[in-house]
């Protein structure tokens, strides 16, 4: 069995099993900003393997990654609903649906479609996603009532601050990358040492 698939399955099971599941779901901030992104990350990891076996029809129909990213937006929006989070806590079957849908309907299509998206499309997604995370955080802080039946008011506020913190962090990172640029990823390959150091007999041949 492929080691990567094994690790993904093991991580998925570890997230599902107690105490990790109970621990992450007992706090609103941990539920939203740790468990959900980790489940999406498992789907992303899965995409690197699945990509090799992706049917040609799907790869072509996923033009510029648009259908895939639309699916990601719907799947993540669904699990942002306070009612959906409540249902996941109250009903293990709904929680199972979350554990299946976030990797397969959010992480996996994100991983497959992202590389098909043009740079401007990716920038558009980032530019929408980051302020939205901050806005949801601000809404949690401003809400006069509890939004989730299973979380306390102070947990809602700390989830709000965590989301704002993530938005600020991502926004800063994105700003730096967009306006200053990131270090070239292949800098170390610019002058491969084995070519620089060709033994004399082969030099110039």
């Amino acid at each position, binding site marked *: 069995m492929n080691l990567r698939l094994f690790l993904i399955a093991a991580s998925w099971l570890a997230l599902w099993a107690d105490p990790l599941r109970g621990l992450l779901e007992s706090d609103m901030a941990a539920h939203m900003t740790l468990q959900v992104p980790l489940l999406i990350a498992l789907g992303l990891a899965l995409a690197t393997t699945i990509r090799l076996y992706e049917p040609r029809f799907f790869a072509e129909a996923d033009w510029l990654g648009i259908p895939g990213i639309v699916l990601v937006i719907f799947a993540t929006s*669904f699990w942002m*609903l306070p009612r959906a989070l409540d249902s996941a806590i109250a009903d293990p079957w709904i929680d199972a649906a979350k554990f299946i849908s976030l990797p397969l309907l959010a992480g996996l299509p994100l991983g497959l479609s992202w590389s098909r998206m043009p740079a401007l499309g990716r920038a558009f997604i980032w530019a929408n996603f980051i302020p939205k995370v901050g806005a949801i955080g601000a809404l949690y802080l401003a809400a006069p009532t509890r*939004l989730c039946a299973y*979380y306390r008011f102070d947990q809602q506020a700390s989830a709000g601050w965590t989301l704002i913190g993530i938005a600020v962090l991502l926004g800063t990172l994105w700003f730096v990358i967009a306006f200053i640029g990131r270090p070239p990823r292949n800098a170390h390959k610019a002058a491969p040492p084995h070519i620089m150091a060709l033994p004399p007999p082969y030099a110039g041949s």
Partner: protein
Amino acid sequence: MPRGFLPLVAIVAAAGTAALARETDGFRVITTAGARQLAIERTPAPLPDVQLVDQDGHAFRLSDYLGKRILVDFFYSRCPTICTARGEDFQRVRELMDDGGDASIGLLSISFDPGNDDREARKLYGDRFSAKTPRWRIAVPTDSGDLAALLKSFGVVVIPDGLGGFIHNDAVYLVDAYGRLARILDPQDPKQLLAEAKGAP
């Protein structure tokens, strides 16, 4: 544009919209409490006929109220905040009814903390708001299994507050003359509460 692109986008968008619409009851609610409120407004829900005991130690059943509308709230007597506010609202509702010589609406406060809220504690809690039976009963189910059934049917979620107390829905429940949960009311002006109760079947 490749073949298959438009149908794929359409399927994804339609399925996604349908899922979101279902979970938000047609884009009207995002919270569990909101969804429950809307569902009850559409279809009043039957309630289990459990036995309770009031602050004077008298046992009674929910079905004893058949033919009479009641306003119900849930509390625990150590609650420092919202239970007191709802208690004061009920006290005002009772005063308003007294002023009008009206006894058509019953008041019922149910504790979800039977371990602490024994008869004495309920009596003390009732005295804070001059609650007298049978007009305003401060009660607890006689059976702990009944408490869970009662909370479930009213849609009350009780969670620990991390400080030894509880956090629970802040709402007033209107039970109609047929013994059904007819409305879940947001806390509001006691005059309005009374008007809502009188408007129920």
